[in-house]
């Protein structure tokens, strides 16, 4: 290739590069929008043909039409519950979302740290493991819903039972995941550590912990949605504020528009949570190649 054509092709690739780069950056977002549009399209079509009763299944253009009317059902304090609530601004909506998010975040953090500690403890201390593992395995299949009365008996009403329920929703699964991850640490990693003179404690700290964290974080992300479901149940029944409470109140007052509006908020918040966890995973657990973080 002569210098001239090389220069020309470089300029071209630079120019093409800008457009391609912009498209590349936008591409994920465009796919998300397309995905939502298909769903909304079907729904609106069903309404237009008269298949979907607007009272029971109001399509997005109806339940998103009168936002201030929807907003007034949101009260972050949860003091004026139900149809009496006189919230009304976008901030009260964000406040309600924030409360639910806070409960999920605290519950997730507690669940992650404690399940990691207990999981490592089970493998590290033989007797402890033999005593605790059967218990964990037996408690794991119990649905968070079944724990709800227990949560209320122990913690009464308010934030603690909701956080407890989120914690329960992920704790046992994450503990079992920790065990399976520990058992799957490549045997060469541990053999090398032994050759290098690591004590058992050092092997756990310097080899096992860093090698199980990435997969555990993925497991945490997968259980994020279970945590969201748990918090909504707790809010609907035991707390009296948050997105779950609004949904339940909307159900009780037969306000289908509000039901779907709240479901939209829940979906968007859950999506945002997943994105945030993904971002943290990329930043903190850099040694897992980007290909292992998962699409989108």
């Amino acid at each position, binding site marked *: 290739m002569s210098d001239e054509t090389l220069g020309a092709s470089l300029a071209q690739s630079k120019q093409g590069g800008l457009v391609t780069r912009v498209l590349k950056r936008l591409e994920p977002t465009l796919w998300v929008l397309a995905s939502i549009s298909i769903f909304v399209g079907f729904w609106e079509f069903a309404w237009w043909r008269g298949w979907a009763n607007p009272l029971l299944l109001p399509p997005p253009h109806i339940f998103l039409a009168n936002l201030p009317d929807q907003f007034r059902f949101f009260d972050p304090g949860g003091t004026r519950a139900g149809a009496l609530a006189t919230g009304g601004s976008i901030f009260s909506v964000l406040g309600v979302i924030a409360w639910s998010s806070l409960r999920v975040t605290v519950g997730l953090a507690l669940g992650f740290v404690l399940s990691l500690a207990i999981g490592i403890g089970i493998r590290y201390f033989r007797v402890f493991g033999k005593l605790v593992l059967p218990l964990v395995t037996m408690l794991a299949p119990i649905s968070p819903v079944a724990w709800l009365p227990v949560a209320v008996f122990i913690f009464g009403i308010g934030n603690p039972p909701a956080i407890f329920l989120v914690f329960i929703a992920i704790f046992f699964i994450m503990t079992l995941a920790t065990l399976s991850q520990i058992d799957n640490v490549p045997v060469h990693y541990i053999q090398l550590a032994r050759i290098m*003179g690591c004590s058992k404690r050092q092997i756990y700290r310097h080899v096992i912990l860093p090698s199980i964290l990435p997969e555990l974080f993925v497991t945490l992300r997968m259980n994020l949605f279970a945590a969201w479901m748990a918090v909504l149940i707790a809010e609907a029944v035991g707390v009296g504020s948050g997105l779950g409470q609004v949904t339940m109140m909307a159900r009780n007052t037969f306000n289908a528009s509000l039901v779907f509006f709240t479901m939209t908020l829940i979906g968007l918040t859950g999506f945002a949570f997943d994105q945030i966890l993904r971002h943290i995973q990329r930043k903190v657990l850099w040694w897992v190649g980007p290909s292992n973080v998962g699409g989108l």
Partner: protein
Amino acid sequence: MTLGLKITNVSKTWNPDGADPVPAVRNLTLDVALGEFVVLLGPSGCGKSSLLYIVAGLEDATEGSVTFDGLEVTEPSPERSLIFQEASLYPWLTVQDNITFGLKIAGQSPKKQEEAAERLLRLVGLVGAGERRPHELSGGMRQRAALARALAMEPKVLLMDEPFAALDIQTRARMQGHLLNIWESSKASVLLVTHSIDEALALADRVVVFTARPGQIKAEIAITAPRPRDMRSPEMIDLARQCEALLGEEVEKSFKEQELT
């Protein structure tokens, strides 16, 4: 007291109390002198890797004893470092942190670690790659980093389990040359396992040919030719033929055994 490695009447059976015990090594006696380069050559699955793990102290022998510099081998030690077929660098550490991992565990100061890393990176030809992540390196570079990590602990014997088997032929030849240089300057003994006759002849002071499983010593061939060796010289071709004949019988045997089961 004898210096060096002394393997006496070692037998190893995997799963000895189970329904299906697998004898890996039987009644094996082998000495490796200080600074000697010994290659274990045998068909795959003949127990030569098992022997390496026993010498490393990662596995116990079912019978017999292994001593190093007169002391019984009971547990792993940095002075008997093992290098695997896959480099097994820790993916969460940089190349440099991988190399100094053992020094850090031993409680050496960061300054000393830094110096050691610089020296070792130069020794294995990875200058400038210290801050890279293992997944950014080629297979050959990773294996050199693993070598540097082992050398950081100043081992008296390097145990190598088919260290170059996963590399392409060209990289392999370069790595063998590299290994010889490092071995000559470090004065460590090397016990290397391979199933490649060429590799065995290019590297060894002494080639130990294994039988099919359970592994026993079939023959020992001393090679006095100076290195680097011309593999096409009549002497080396003759040795290669000998090895081929010895190994061929064993490969035949292990094939027959596999057909039966």
